[in-house]
Structure formats: structure tokens, C-alpha cells
């Protein structure tokens, strides 16, 4: 009998036993070693362990065997093309499109590519189970199932027509079943079969043919299922050394912590003399966690080999093309930015930065990359594919695009669909990577790793929800739900496969199996992460170049001093280092404020409402009607109401607008700022009283308190600068142009302070609730206090003091530094003055506290 089945208890050792036999073949004796995919390299390494030179021994998978047989039998015809899964699905998709009208059950969504993929899996599964398609419909019990199988059958027929004369993986197996026996390669060979845990019915048929035809066949069987499948051959029971690995578990709260724990242990093992190759780490969530493990391994300087089956979709080139298409389809700025930054864009760095800054600042979308412009004109899929092909040097990508072009020639073109299709294909396509095993610890995905002998096997993420838990019952495997409502294998089937795998994996290590996880329901080594991390606070040493930084022209702006009192550090960033967040394309309050100011300045010179609004609108430089129309309305409203406000009072004319006020400061500095408006009133005898007015488009309250704290210095500074023998200060204040809705037809009111001597000069309703009427003496002290604050601020800035200090608790929330200075809520000034009501009483009582 030329068929020998060796049956041992341990999977790994049984396979090694058979491979050892294969390695013992005489040199040049034709030998085929038939193994599952991904086992080839492993098998070759094992063969070479026993036999340093292999000649005429081939390690083949089913598909390699097909190539050998088909090439031999049809050597004078062109080779039959075998579709990979991607192309096969694409063809199935085309088939479904063609017969969509005939389908009865899968109606609505049948056109979707992802539906095609699911359908392909189903059909493939049925074919590998050797299901007879024609009889399915007849056997179906319910009307629903009948309809469904009718559809599946139709789709399959259409698919077969489309792909002929090419074939796919199931077709390959059919071919082998029919032709393997005629092949001389097979007839001459001693065949060794190992590494399989089970064989699908279709593969089992091929194996049956090989057993008939080949010189001899030797099979390794340790798994119950495979033994059952091979029961017609008499097995030899063999004694192989069963490993009895100890199983230990470890747990850590976070996934990174888990990686740390495991890698630490591995580093220790290697230090103890275990060769790295004898350690394997399996991840159950490889795609997402592999980078973490890589990083952690790097941290410990542990050489690892990530067994990456990188997806095509992770390559920059694929992303580039996808984003390009998305830009065409969506006109979204985010995609455009992604296209620009991609290194495949070929745009030089400086241009990219400039465009990026522009995208942030303006609403520029999808209009600046030449390729994009060029592609926008494309209306048909074939041309689009060709153009995209020319943008890539990646063969796989080109291949995909070519396939789409071929298959879509007759399809209606829909850009959305195209993107989905393209991206699905990219995601499904792997970029091959042959791992180097030597002197490295292998980190591999749990489902793809080929079980082989190692000393230490780590299985990580065991407490993840999809972790394959061992399970006693094997019956579950039979549960392929082909008659129910689903068209994919049931989750429980998936789970069952995982269980079996988990069981197998736990027997392959010779020394230890180490399971690790994160969740609580796993035996634990507790871990306490660090909480309340804070990094070091800002350096509080004074800067030595304060003057050059803040006062390059020896000029001091009052607003800068105000901002200094607000937060010296923020002032350092904004006014010293001149750093501002990038302007986003939006209507920010500053722009609106400037526009309204511009309109008002113009109005009070020319008294022409329409002209003023036109100027205001021009200053806005933004067009989004739902907002801008409203602002236009608001400007008109403000102008009218202001005019009305000033009609009654004496301080209406003459008006001095945009006046520059200057005064000398110590250290050769000049304080210089602009007043929105100064109103003058004639007192007789050449004497005049003036009112300093500043428009505010935002909220202003507690002016008194703000002056005291230094947040508002302009009013007292300007006031004192303008004072002389003939000009008397009547008052100073802000005019809040907008403070929510008025409760009645109230006019605008001043928010500031008024000299009681000239009180009668003010229109009665100009004084707001927050305006204080003060004696000249108090005003004098107020101005002096402000002046003192100015001197202090200048002195502190010159001394380089930029220590952060915030005003209110929610201040940091709006700060562009987002609390980075780490001062938030610690040095809060609000806290210190809480409960103290600061009013003008402070000045009246002479308290300068």
C-alpha cells in the first residue's frame, strides 16, 4: 500500500515526524511536500534541519500543485489565468450587475460591491463543501430558501460565464481532481502531506486522486477531524514526544501595559539564554495593536519581526489616490489637505505649507492641485483608471485599477461607487512581506501563524472579546447556516473555529504558554497606571531681551499693557513672540468688530448710512449670507440707534475720531494709542470739556474693577493725556454696541465714569447702570492709579517677567495655549479677589490695596 498515514497526538511533532521522513528521500528523487498556505517557508526550514541540500524536493501548496500540473498538461497553450480573490469578487460583482433584473430575493442591495464579496464567500464555501448547486433549489424547504438558492444559482452561472476560460481557486481544485492523475510530475513523485488540521471536501477529493496516482503518499494526522476524514486509510500510530507546556497568565490594565509586561518577560528570557527564534508572540488583534507592540519592543531594544501582511490600503500611494478621488467627489477641504501632504503628491514642502495655511485661512477647496483639476474633467471610469494608473508606480495598485477599468467598461459610472470599490479592493489586497526569522522574536497574528515548535509561546489580548476561548464541543463546526436567513457563516461557527485553533496553539510550545490580557475576568497581575500626570510648569526665569522683544520701536501700546495684566505669559506669546493661532475660515469676533468700527467711523464723518454700511461690509471680507446679511442689518441698526442716542445730548458734535494720543513714559518709551472718538463741549471762556468714547462690539462690564486690576487702562490714560488748563475731563467710557437684546426701546448707554462737575452735560439716558459719577479728586486718583499700573507693567516687562497668571477660571478654556502653561486654576487672580467688591469707594477711601 503506497498510502501511509502517521497518527500522533501532538500536532507539531507529528508534522515534524513526516517532514523528517521527507528529508530522508534520496537526493534527486522527485518529492512533493504538500502543505497549507503560509506553511511553505516553515516546512522548508524544517526539511533543511535534517538535510542540508534538497534537490528535486518541492514544498508545494494546492495552488502551486495546480500550476505544476496545468503547465505540464497544457504546456503548449498559454497558461490559464487563475483569478485571485480580488479579481474573482470583481467578476462576481459584474455578474450580479448583469443579471440584477432576474434576481428575486437579493433585490435592493445586490448592486453593491460589498454584497458581491459576501456572496462570493458564500459561493466559495459551498463549492469547497462540494455542494451541488443545481439540486439546492429543489431541496430547499421554505419558499424563502428556494428563492434565495435560485438567486445564488443564477449568480453563480453568470459568474462562470464571465470568468471563462479563466478559473478561480475553487476551479483549480476541480481541475486537480480531474487531471492530477495524468501528470507525470505527480506520478513520479513521493508525496508527503503535512501541516493540515482538516481538509475541505474539495481538497480531500484532490488528495484522494493523488493517493491513486502518485508513487507513494505519506500523511501526517494528529487532529481528530483530519483523522476522521482520512479514516479509509489505515493509520500508523506513532509515538512522538508530547510537549507539556506550563500555562501561565498575566494581565495588565491597558493594552500598552500588557505589551510592556510581555516584552519585559521576553527580554528576561533572552537574557537567560533562550534564543529569540524560540519565542513567538501571537496577537489576536494584530492589525490594530501591532504598532503598539513594535513601539514597546523598540523601547526595550528587543529585535522583533512583525509578521505584517500590510494591506495595500495602508500605503501612501493608495491613500493618495483615494483622497484624490474623494476630493473630486466631495469637494471637502480635509481631503484636499490630505492629498497635498501625501508624499506622492510631488509638491515641494514650501508650497504644501503655503497651501495648508491658505486652506486654514480661506475657504479654498479642491482647486489647487493640478492633478485634481486635470481629473475633474474625467467623466468615464476607464479614462479615470488610466489617469490614476499613471499616478502610481505600485504594481498592485495599477493592477487593481486595470481590473476595475476592464470590468467596468460596460458599467454605468458612479464616482461614489468607484471610490468604495477602489478602497475595498485596496483594503482587501495584501502587500506581501516575507519575514526574516533569524535572531528575532516573531510577533504574528494569531489566525495566520503556522503552528510550529517553539519554546515559549505568548498569546496576547486573550481577554479581548474575539479571543478564541477553548471549547469542548466540536459539533458546532457543522453548523453552516446555509438555509437560514444569513448568507455568511454564523458567528458561532467563526467562534468554534477560533476555539479549535486556541486549543491547538496551547500545545505547540515545549516550555511555556503565556496568556496575557487586559480585562478583569482574567487572572491578574494588577497594575496601577499613573494618575494625575502634570508636566513641569513654565520656566519662570526672567527673559533678558524684554525690551527688544516687546518695544522694538520704543513704543508702548496700551492694549498690550492691558493684555499683560490679563496674563503676562499669554501676552509674551501673543505680543512678544507674535504668535497667533492660524486664522480659520470663519467670522471671528475681531473681524466683525473691526467692520462695525469701520462703518461707525465713516458714519460719524459723513453721516451717510448706506456708505458706512458699504465700508463695513467691505471690511468684513467674508461671504456667507446667513451670517453676513444679518451683520449688515445689525450695522444699520447700530448706526441708527447711536444716532438717536446722540441726538438729544450735547456731546454729539464736533466729533474727533480715530485720534492718536501719546504720552511719555520712563525708560525713553512713548505710550501711544488711538481713541475711537472724543466728543467736545464748549464751556465758554475758551474752556472745553471732553468725553472719551470707545466703541465695544463685545461685552464690557465692571469697568471700575477692570481699571483697578489693569485689564482696562486706556480710558484713564487717554483722559489724563488730554487734560490741560483749558480742557476738562467730563467722562470716559465704553459704549457697548451689543449686549444681547434690550428689554425695551432703550438707547445705548455709557459704561465708565463721569466727572460730577460736568454731569449735566450728559444726556440723561447716556449713563448706564455701571457708570459711576465721581468727584474730580477721585478721578484724579483713578488716573494716577492707572498711570502707576502702566509704569509697573512696563517695568515688569523690561525686567522680563512673563510668569503666567490667569484672570478667571474659564479663561484658560479660551486661551489658544489650552492650559499648556499648566497654570490653569492655580494662580487664578479671581480667586484672590473673590468676595471683595471693588468699586470706586476704593479710591474715595484712599485705599490703594
Amino acid at each position, binding site marked *: 500500500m503506497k498510502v501511509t498515514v502517521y497518527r500522533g497526538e501532538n500536532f507539531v511533532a507529528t508534522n515534524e515526524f513526516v517532514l523528517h521522513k521527507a528529508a530522508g528521500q534520496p537526493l534527486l528523487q522527485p518529492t512533493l511536500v504538500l502543505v497549507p498556505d503560509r506553511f511553505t517557508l516553515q516546512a*522548508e526550514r524544517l526539511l533543511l534541519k535534517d538535510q542540508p541540500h*534538497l*534537490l*528535486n524536493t518541492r514544498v508545494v501548496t494546492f495552488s502551486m500543485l495546480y500550476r505544476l500540473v496545468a*503547465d*505540464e498538461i497544457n*504546456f*503548449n497553450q*498559454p497558461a490559464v489565468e487563475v483569478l485571485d480573490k480580488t479579481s474573482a469578487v470583481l467578476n462576481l460583482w459584474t455578474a450580479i450587475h448583469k443579471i440584477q433584473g432576474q434576481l428575486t430575493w437579493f433585490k435592493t442591495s445586490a448592486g*453593491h460591491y460589498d454584497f458581491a464579496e459576501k456572496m462570493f464567500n458564500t459561493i466559495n464555501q459551498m463549492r469547497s463543501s462540494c455542494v451541488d448547486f443545481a439540486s439546492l433549489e429543489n431541496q430547499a424547504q421554505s419558499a424563502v430558501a428556494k428563492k434565495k438558492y435560485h438567486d445564488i444559482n443564477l449568480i453563480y452561472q453568470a459568474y462562470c460565464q464571465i470568468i471563462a476560460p479563466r478559473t478561480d481557486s475553487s476551479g483549480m481544485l476541480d481541475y486537480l481532481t480531474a487531471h492530477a492523475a495524468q501528470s507525470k510530475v505527480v506520478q513520479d513523485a513521493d508525496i508527503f502531506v503535512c501541516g493540515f488540521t482538516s481538509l475541505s471536501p474539495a481538497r480531500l477529493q484532490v488528495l484522494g486522486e493523488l493517493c491513486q496516482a502518485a508513487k507513494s503518499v505519506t500523511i501526517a494526522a494528529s487532529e481528530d477531524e483530519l483523522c476522521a476524514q482520512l479514516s479509509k486509510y489505515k493509520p500508523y500510530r506513532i509515538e512522538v514526544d508530547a510537549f507539556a507546556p506550563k500555562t501561565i497568565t498575566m494581565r495588565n*490594565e491597558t493594552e*500598552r501595559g500588557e505589551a510592556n509586561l510581555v516584552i519585559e518577560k521576553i527580554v528576561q528570557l533572552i537574557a537567560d539564554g533562550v534564543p529569540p527564534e524560540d519565542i513567538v508572540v501571537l496577537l489576536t488583534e494584530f492589525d*490594530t495593536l501591532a504598532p*503598539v507592540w*513594535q513601539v*514597546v519592543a*523598540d523601547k526595550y531594544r528587543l529585535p522583533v519581526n512583525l509578521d*505584517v501582511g500590510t494591506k495595500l490600503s*495602508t*500605503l501612501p500611494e493608495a*491613500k493618495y489616490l483615494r483622497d484624490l478621488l474623494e476630493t473630486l467627489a466631495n469637494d471637502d477641504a*480635509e481631503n484636499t489637505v*490630505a492629498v497635498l*501632504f*501625501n508624499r506622492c503628491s510631488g509638491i515641494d514642502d514650501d508650497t504644501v505649507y*503655503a497651501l*495648508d495655511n491658505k486652506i*486654514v485661512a480661506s475657504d479654498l477647496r479642491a482647486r489647487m492641485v493640478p492633478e485634481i483639476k486635470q481629473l475633474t474633467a474625467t467623466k468615464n471610469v476607464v479614462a479615470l483608471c488610466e489617469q490614476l494608473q499613471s499616478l502610481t*508606480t505600485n504594481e498592485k495598485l495599477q493592477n487593481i485599477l486595470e481590473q476595475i477599468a476592464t470590468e467596468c467598461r460596460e458599467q454605468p459610472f458612479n464616482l*461614489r461607487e468607484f471610490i468604495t470599490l477602489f478602497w475595498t479592493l485596496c483594503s482587501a489586497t495584501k*502587500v506581501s512581506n516575507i519575514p526574516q526569522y533569524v*535572531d528575532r522574536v516573531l510577533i504574528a497574528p494569531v489566525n495566520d501563524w503556522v503552528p510550529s515548535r517553539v519554546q515559549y509561546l505568548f498569546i496576547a489580548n486573550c481577554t479581548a472579546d474575539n479571543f478564541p476561548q477553548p*471549547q*469542548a*464541543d466540536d459539533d458546532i463546526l457543522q453548523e453552516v447556516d446555509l438555509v437560514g*436567513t444569513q448568507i455568511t457563516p454564523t458567528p458561532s461557527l467563526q*467562534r468554534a473555529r477560533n476555539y479549535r485553533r486556541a486549543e491547538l496553539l496551547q500545545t505547540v510550545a515545549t516550555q511555556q504558554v503565556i496568556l496575557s490580557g487586559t480585562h478583569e475576568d482574567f487572572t491578574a497581575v494588577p497594575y*496601577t*497606571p499613573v*494618575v*494625575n*500626570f502634570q*508636566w513641569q510648569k513654565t*520656566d519662570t*526665569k526672567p527673559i533678558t531681551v524684554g525690551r527688544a522683544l516687546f518695544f522694538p520701536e520704543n513704543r508702548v501700546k496700551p492694549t498690550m499693557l492691558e493684555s499683560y495684566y490679563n496674563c503676562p505669559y499669554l501676552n509674551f*506669546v501673543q505680543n512678544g*513672540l507674535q*504668535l497667533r493661532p*492660524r486664522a480659520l475660515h470663519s467670522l471671528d469676533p475681531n473681524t466683525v468688530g473691526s467692520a462695525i468700527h469701520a462703518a461707525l467711523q465713516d458714519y460719524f464723518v459723513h453721516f451717510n448710512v448706506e456708505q458706512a454700511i458699504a465700508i463695513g461690509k467691505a471690511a468684513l471680507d467674508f461671504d456667507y*449670507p*446667513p451670517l453676513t446679511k*444679518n451683520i449688515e442689518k445689525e450695522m444699520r441698526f447700530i448706526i441708527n440707534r447711536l444716532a438717536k442716542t446722540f441726538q438729544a445730548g450735547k456731546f454729539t458734535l464736533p466729533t474727533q475720531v480715530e485720534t492718536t494720543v501719546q504720552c511719555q513714559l520712563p525708560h525713553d518709551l512713548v505710550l501711544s494709542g488711538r481713541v475711537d472718538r472724543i466728543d467736545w463741549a464748549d464751556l465758554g471762556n475758551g474752556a472745553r470739556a471732553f468725553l472719551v468714547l470707545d466703541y465695544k462690539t463685545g461685552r464690557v462690564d465692571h469697568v471700575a474693577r477692570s481699571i483697578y486690576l489693569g485689564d482696562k487702562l486706556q480710558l484713564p490714560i487717554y483722559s489724563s493725556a488730554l487734560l490741560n488748563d483749558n480742557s476738562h475731563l467730563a467722562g470716559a467710557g465704553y459704549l457697548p454696541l451689543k449686549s*444681547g*437684546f*434690550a428689554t*425695551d426701546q432703550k438707547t445705548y448707554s455709557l459704561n465708565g465714569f463721569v466727572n460730577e462737575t460736568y454731569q449735566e452735560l450728559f444726556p440723561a439716558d447716556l449713563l448706564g447702570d455701571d457708570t459711576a459719577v465721581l468727584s474730580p479728586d477721585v478721578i484724579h486718583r483713578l488716573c494716577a492709579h492707572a498711570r502707576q499700573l502702566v509704569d509697573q507693567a512696563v517695568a515688569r516687562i523690561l525686567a*522680563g517677567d*512673563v510668569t503666567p497668571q490667569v484672570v478667571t477660571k474659564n479663561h484658560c478654556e479660551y486661551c*489658544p495655549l489650552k492650559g*499648556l502653561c499648566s497654570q490653569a486654576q492655580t494662580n487664578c487672580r479671581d480667586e484672590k479677589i473673590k468676595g471683595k467688591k471693588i468699586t470706586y469707594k476704593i479710591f474715595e477711601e484712599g485705599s490703594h490695596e
Partner: protein
Amino acid sequence: MNKPTREQQKVIDSQAREIKVSANAGSGKTFTIMQQIAQIVKTGNSRVDQLLVLTFTEASAKDMRKKLKEQLGDIVKPAELQAASIGTFHSFCSSIVRAWFTVAEVSPSFAVMDAVESTKIKAAIFEHVVLEHYAKIAKVVDLFTASSRKLDQLRKVVFEIQDFLDTREDRADWLKRQALTAYEPDINQNQAIQALINYYHHTAEKYRAYFLETGTPSPMLDSMVDLCNRILGAQTYADFGGLDLTFPAAKSGELKTQSDAFRKLREDFRDKLCRTIPETCQYPVAQITADINTERVIVEQLLLLVQVFDQAYQAKKAEAKKLDFSDLEKYALKVLGNPEALTSIRAQFKYIFVDEGQDTNPVQFKIINLLRGTDKFFCIVGDVKQSIYGFRACEPEIFESLTDEDGNLVPVLLLGKNFRSTDPILHFVNMVMKPLIPHYMEDHKFTEIGEPNPEAMQQAVVLEAAKTLPEQMELVYRHIVAEKNLAWQDIVVLSETSGHLLELQKYLSERGISAVIDRKTNALLEPEITLLNDFLFAAMNPTNELKRYLVLQYLFHFSNDDLARLRLGQMDDQLTVRLNQCDAIWQQYRQLGRSASAYEVLTQAATEFGMLEMPVVSAFLAAIRGVRDFDTVARYLYLIEHDLVKIEVNVGAYAQNAVKLMTIHNSKGLEFPMVILFNMSNPWSAQSNERSNVKVVYDKRLGVCVSSVDTENYVLKSPVLHLGIKKYQQEIEVKEKIRLLYVALTRAKKKMVIIGSDQGNRYAVQPNCMMHLINPLTMHVYEDGVELSPKLTTTTVKSKTKITTCPVVGHPDALVKQSVTALATSAEPFQDYVAPQLFADVGGKEFGTAFHRQVQYGDLPEPVAELVTGYTVYREIPFLYPQGQTIVQGIMDLLAVKDNEAIIVDYKTTRLPKDQLVAKYREQLRLYAQAVPNYQVRAYLYSTVHKALIEVKF
């Protein structure tokens, strides 16, 4: 708790086809259900896979599975247990939509969007929708942008109403009819105005009762009661407008005869009613009617906006083949509307269990109803007292008024006994809740949940009062320190709002207590993440100066002075070297950032700067991995810069050995040995104030109402409708607060500390904070001479007693530089990207392949045949041998052997001169020769171009 109690046994043994279990907090609800299920399975009434158990959270579904395994592990195979349908509402809906996608008319491979994704989509289309329909919705846009000049508020309101609609089974109808309820022009029929009148009546009634209770008979008391009566006598809006509510001035000495409580009530009464009523009811009826008509237009525009926005959003989702959570429910309902599907789905189940029944919204309820039909065994468990998700449109009334097919109420079984807390705590809960519930929720009775044990209670429950927040925080600290028997992780501090938890955390950690906030926060606002992102911004675009400088300062430790010099261009050599080092690092990340995903780059950066182990960083990284929108760094940065995404993480969930701080809402369903209820006097009005800017109120019954504003003249108008709905909602809110309080009080197992200020007022007509609910009622429980209720200790705390040592675990070596290691050099086939170009044609290659096949299976070329005459010939022979650390593998075209001699021939189709051919392929043949051990090897090339054999010597 191994054996069911009698109460529980009654539920377990219940023979009724449909039952409703009203279960108090901690009464062993899950245990009972599991027992019940076990019994059903054990007696053979149902297989496990014929059970459908619906819950509201993943955690409880997981917990149930675990418990079921414990119960049935012996008799049911694990595989069968796996097949049991125990899951959340959403996972159940998702499974039926997926299975019946043809009926639901969705793509079979739809993806379920998370909140981040749906917010992004919504934000992206909102501006377009507003612009597109501006002409039709100008008034409502004006209303919202008039003061803010931004669309933010409008956006928020539209999103909110849309979310609300998603929970309505009757959404179209609601939009059409119910939404405009408040705008009934006949003000005598207007329900919003009626709600305001009802509120005035309720309040006046309460004042009247309190006046009579606290007042000493006198003309003053009479006049107060008279005022109340006047209010109660007014029936219509017009009546209220005409009321004379002039407040009688007190005669000298008159007030002294009255109690403090009376005086306080009198003042409140003046402020709350006598002043407010004339203010709100001053408007003539004609004006109100006119206002209603103008405002109705605005509301109609708002509803139109909601509708068109919703349509746009649905279209966008369909295009992307995405479903959001509410869609799952919606489509599940659609599937169940199909008779074939319904029959098939229902046939799978015999028994249906629903947990937390009080948290169902109308759509979910409809689903439940369709499933249970009239023949399934149905058991719903819940506790109306724990319904605290009113803001998510859950309707406890649904649970309360559950009826069978004949319209009869489903029989209720009660699980009253609480097993969670010790009796002293339960006693306290009874004390507080027993009078509260009937007082504020007239239609409810409170069933006691434990035995009275007043003495022990004083040990287990502590009420503490302190006025200011720092003082309250100090109290929290002291209680934690004083607790010697429990570990930190056994202590949890609950607060009604999350607002002050951050301060508390800081306060505690400054004093050496690790505390973590157990709640979801937007990681993008955390400084650690901000810094990492800034690093990425600066790396990707060095002209983004703000980010660049910040990173230089905080990651690369440039001092303020260094930065100033950098800005001024006054750099010394050392500074230049440091800057160049930073630039080199940025350069590397820029390269990486142009091909890798945000997750990969940030993971690497976090490692480089020693930030990987920070909980917020690791939680953040876990949250962004695999997110499609972040698969390119540039896109990620764009989205965060424009504030289009929010990345929610729960840092606290990871922490051990730390006191947990969380909101009462988050604590639902959990239990802790010791609970500190913090900031219980935080006024609710603070939340209402926050909402006073809100220009829209809506209510499921009273519809949508905009605040009354004349946007042309920027003037507020009669606020009657708005106020009516608000007051109506406030009354509902108090009920929800009571339920929230109940949840808060029933979390502790052994010890409970309640901290707030002592502003308890027994006669609070409108309770304003949790303390109002607790305090007055605890003071008056045992009045027969013995004061047994917990003493309200007013503690004066000297705040800011700083402890200088700061044992917060920091990173001693944090932020130290490490070299950047290449992430996956082996997997990077794209290292040297060259400008795109088309490939040349590959005709030569094809010819080579064809020739090889020919010589493998057909005749040999003549010179070759001649050479190997007499030899045994092998064609296409594979070989393998190791060399150093690599395996050499290949296939020889031809190998011929005789005795110990071997000839190797390799066919070449390359068009090259002979000498060049030899030079090119010598190494290849040398390697071939090594594959044939123990033979004398001669090697030849056969050139198809030259049609000749060329010997190759090594």
C-alpha cells in the same frame, strides 16, 4: 445571595404569561431574572437559544452572560449558551437589520457609525443646508445669529431636536402637529399658557398651605392667604393680567410675631409670584395673539430647517452606507413591520426579558411590543424611581402603564428588599424618600426598602455642611483620610454635575490622594493630547509658528528666553544646535506623517516623549486607532484644527488604587462600599441659567417654542409661552431630580457621607438643590421628643491648608529624548518614491516564459540535447540550501548527472553579447552549482538569441 428570597421566588415561580417586575435598587434584579431563566431552561420549557434578553448597556449584557453561565454551566453546553440572544437593544436591532437587509432596504454590509463620525457628517452638511435654504429660514437664522453672529447655537438646537425626533415613533406626526402646540392662537386653549397658569396655581396653593402652617393668626396672615386665593381664583390669562397683587406693607412690629419660616416664605412669595405675575401677564391678549402669529412663523422655519437638515443627513448616510444608533432602531422597526420577517424573528423566541424597562423610549417600546405579540412569555423589569434619562427622551410612563393585549395593566410583582446596603443606610434612604415621593410625585407611593435602625444609622450616614466649595472639598478630603478600613478604590465621590470634579481632583491630589474622574471627556482638550497634537502640527507644517514655539518650550524644554532670542534672531551656537536637533526630529516625523496613520505617528511620538504610559494618552491612542478619518495625518490635523471631531475617552476607568469621582448619572447600576455625595447644595438654577441663553425650548407634549424676540428691533417680547413651557418642564425636572437623588442614595453599601451647605428649607416651594430635598425632611422624622435623625454638622474648615509634599506619581524621566526608531522598515515597500511614470512594455518577459515551458516539457534545443547525451536529465529541478542566515532557493532549468559528474544548463532569452551574459549570470550559476553537492559540476548558459551554449567558469 445564593438562595432566592420569598419575594424573588414569587417572581421566579410566576406562571403568568406576562409579568412586570418593579425592582428596588439593589434588590437582586439580575439575580432573580437569571434564576428565572435557569428555572425555565431546567424544566425544559425553553431552550437557551429561544430566550431573548434585552439590556441597555454592554456591561450589563456581559454580566448577564457570565451569570447565566454560572447558573447553567452544568447542564447546558457552552456552545448553546453562546447561542443565547443576550445583548443590548442596539446589538439586537443590528442583528435583525443585517439579517433582513432586503426588507430594511439597507446595504448588507452597512457600518454603524459612532458619535464622532455622525457629528462630523452633521457638522459638514449643516452650513450647506442653511445656505441652501436661507431664503426660507431667514427669520430663524436671524433669531439665532443676531447676538452671537455664529451658527453654533442654531446648530446645537437643530441637532438636539433631530436627536429627539429619532426617539419618537410618531416623528412625522409630531413634527406636523405636536411641535406647534404652543402656538395655538386662542390663548384660552393654548397649552403653554395653561401650563404657566397651572404653575402659578400649584405654587400659590403650596404657599397658602405653608402660610397656614407656619403663620400665627393675624391680619398679615389673612392678607397673605387672600393673595394666594386671588391667584387661585384667576382662571384665564386675562384674569391674571387684571389681578391686583399689591403686596401689603408690614405694620411695625407685625413681623416680629411671626416665625422665621413665615417671614422667609413671605419674601419668597413676593419675589416669586407677586412680582412675576404682573410682569409676565401684563400684555394685552391681542398682543399675545399677534406675537403668537409672528413667532409661529419662526418655529415653522425652524422645523423646516430640522426637516431639510434631516433629509440631507439621511441622504449622506445612505450614500456612505452608514447607519447611526437611532437608525438601527428605526430600521429594526421597519423589518418588524414586514409580516414574513416578523413571523420568522418571533419564531426564534419563546421568552422575552427586558431589563431596565423604565429607560425605554417610544421607538424601543414599539419594538418590544411587536416582539412580544400576544403569545410570547414576557417579563420586563425596571424601577421607575431610577428613571434618570429624561433628557434622552426615555419615558418611564411607558413602563408604568404597560398593558396587555386587552388593555389591562400587566400584573406587577415587587422586589422590595435591598441587599446591597446595610440597614442603617437603607433606613436613611427610607427617611428621605418616604415623605419626598408623595410630596412631589403625587401619584407615587414609596415602598420601604429596609428595616429601621436609627442608632447604627448615625455611624453609617454622615451629613456634613460647609458653605464654600473649598470647604466642602476639605471635608471630602478629611472623610477619605479618616476612613481606615477601606482602600481608596472602595471610595467614590458622586456629584450631580461634573463641573467641580476637576477641582476636587486637583484638591485631593495636592493632598496626596490619587483621584480619578470616571467619566468620558474629550481627550482633545487634555493638555497632554494638545501637546502631542501640537507636536504633529509643528512637524507637518513648520510655518505653523504658534505650535512650533509651544512644542519647543514644552517638549524640547526651550526656556522663555530661548524662545525670545529665537524670535529676535539672536541665537548663540548652543541654541542653534538644539534647534537643529529638534528640526531633525520633526523632519523624521514629517516623513512618517506623510504615509502613516495618525495613530501610528502619535504612538511613536508618545513613546519618544515618554508619554505612552499616561492613562489619558493610552486611552486616547486606543480611541483613535483604526478610525478611517485618521488614516492620514493631514486629514486628522485638519479635522481637529477645525474642531470637527471629538474623541471621547474615559481615563478614570483604567485607574486602580484611586478614589473615583463621578456623576450620579454614571453611577447608576454600580455599587461601592463608601459613597461621598459632594456639592449637594449646588443649585439647579445654575443649570437653568446656563440655559437661559437658549432661544428654544421644546417638550414632547407642548412642542417647540422660541424665545420671544423681535429680531428687527432687537427687543424682547412677551415671554409667556416660553415661560409656560419652562415652568412645565421645571416641575417635571424636580421629579427627575428626586429619582436622581434616589439613585445617589442607594449606591453605598456600608457608608455614606453627604456634603453640602446647610441651606435646607423645609418649606422650599420650589426646591433648588439636592440639599433642599434631603435636609428639611431628615430634620422632622422622629418628633416625639427624641432627635434621632442625623445631626447636621456645620463644619468650618480653614481652606488651603497646603501640604507641601506632593506624592503625585510623576515621571522622573518623563519627556527625555529617545531616538526615533523606524516603525516597520521591512513592511515599507515605498521608501523611495519617484515621480509617477508609466512602465515600459513587458514583451520580453512573456517570451521568456513561453520558451521555458517549451523546453521543460517539449524537445531540448539541439546543442543542449547533444551535451547531455548519456546523462540522466532532470528538467526544472528545484533546490534549497542554507547559506549563512538565508535560505537559497531556486529552480534549475536543466540538471544532468552521470556517475559523479553533473551538468547545469540555464536558458537565457536576454539580448546581450556573450561575454556580458556570462558576467551577468556567473553568480547565479555559482549558486546553482553549490546546490548540487558531491558532484563535479560544469555550468552552461544556453542563449536563445545566439542559439549557442556558453560555458561558465567560476
